[in-house]
């Protein structure tokens, strides 16, 4: 490795940490009493907003692209099943924190957690 290589690696790692460390330190945690919601968008249009409750809810997202089944439980949400070809969306697992997302690219489905109080999070949608 040359000096420029090490410089490149350090800059990239510092940049990544600059994004990650504030995220770890913030007390922006999910859980009871936080009133988080999940915004489900398809093709950039809002499909549904669901409250993240402790009780289980199942959301069917059926569009021309195919179907995705989301499951809400324990103040979080996960992709339960989908008929997309790559199944990458199932790999995102169970998410509970604001700004976390689940993406199903083949079906153009995006699930993003936001706080229900709203106001601060609307900047996420670019039309």
């Amino acid at each position, binding site marked *: *490795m040359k000096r420029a290589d090490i410089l490149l690696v350090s800059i990239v790692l510092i940049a990544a940490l600059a994004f990650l460390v504030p995220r770890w330190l913030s007390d922006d945690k999910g859980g009871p009493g936080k009133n988080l919601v999940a915004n489900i968008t398809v093709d950039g249009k809002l499909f549904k907003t669901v409250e993240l409750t402790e009780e289980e809810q199942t959301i069917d997202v059926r569009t021309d692209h195919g179907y995705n089944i989301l499951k809400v439980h324990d103040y979080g949400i996960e992709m339960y099943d989908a008929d997309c070809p790559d199944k990458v969306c199932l790999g995102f697992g169970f998410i509970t924190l604001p700004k976390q997302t689940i993406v199903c690219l083949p079906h153009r489905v995006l699930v993003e957690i936001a706080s229900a109080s709203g106001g601060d999070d609307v900047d996420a949608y670019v039309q």
Partner: protein
Amino acid sequence: MPMSSKESTTALKRTVIVALFAAVAVVLSIVEAQIPLAGMGLMPGAKLGFANIMILTCIYFLRARDAFVLVLLKTLLTAFILGTFSSLLFSLFGSLFSFAVMYVLVRFGGKRLSVIGISIAGGLAHNTGQLLAASIVLKSSSTFYYFPMLLITGVVTGILVGFAVRYVVASLSKISLFEEFLKPDQQLRKD
């Protein structure tokens, strides 16, 4: 315009090398598709980028247009074999962006960056390109939540790919097929 026998031999060799590299790149893509990275708690959809080994090696030996053909062949053939047409555009976007960055760095920054640095830059460009394509399709910038994770995985896989390219280029340089494509000025093995 008829080519001299030497010219046509070189053209034939180039074609053979691109075909060989494309075959190896496709096999590497298929192999890495079987590795369940998402199950290991990593970024879903993250890949090791093994095929990049062949693309970077091709940039070192051949011309830009040969490497460009290799990128197209590899992406199309992988989509055909794995049946991932829905993500074809994303892979193409990422691969071409990565190819452009690596080519520019090899030609104009090859003295300062070693092959490892170039492969890291290529991996990062690939990730960024795919994320950009995803945010365009989803009409949302929230996919950039995963950008820092992709930066870190890009560096790690870039280092692995870079070491692999160093060994591949050193070994291929001993084969007579590659003799006339050697570029001693690029100082690939200098650390």
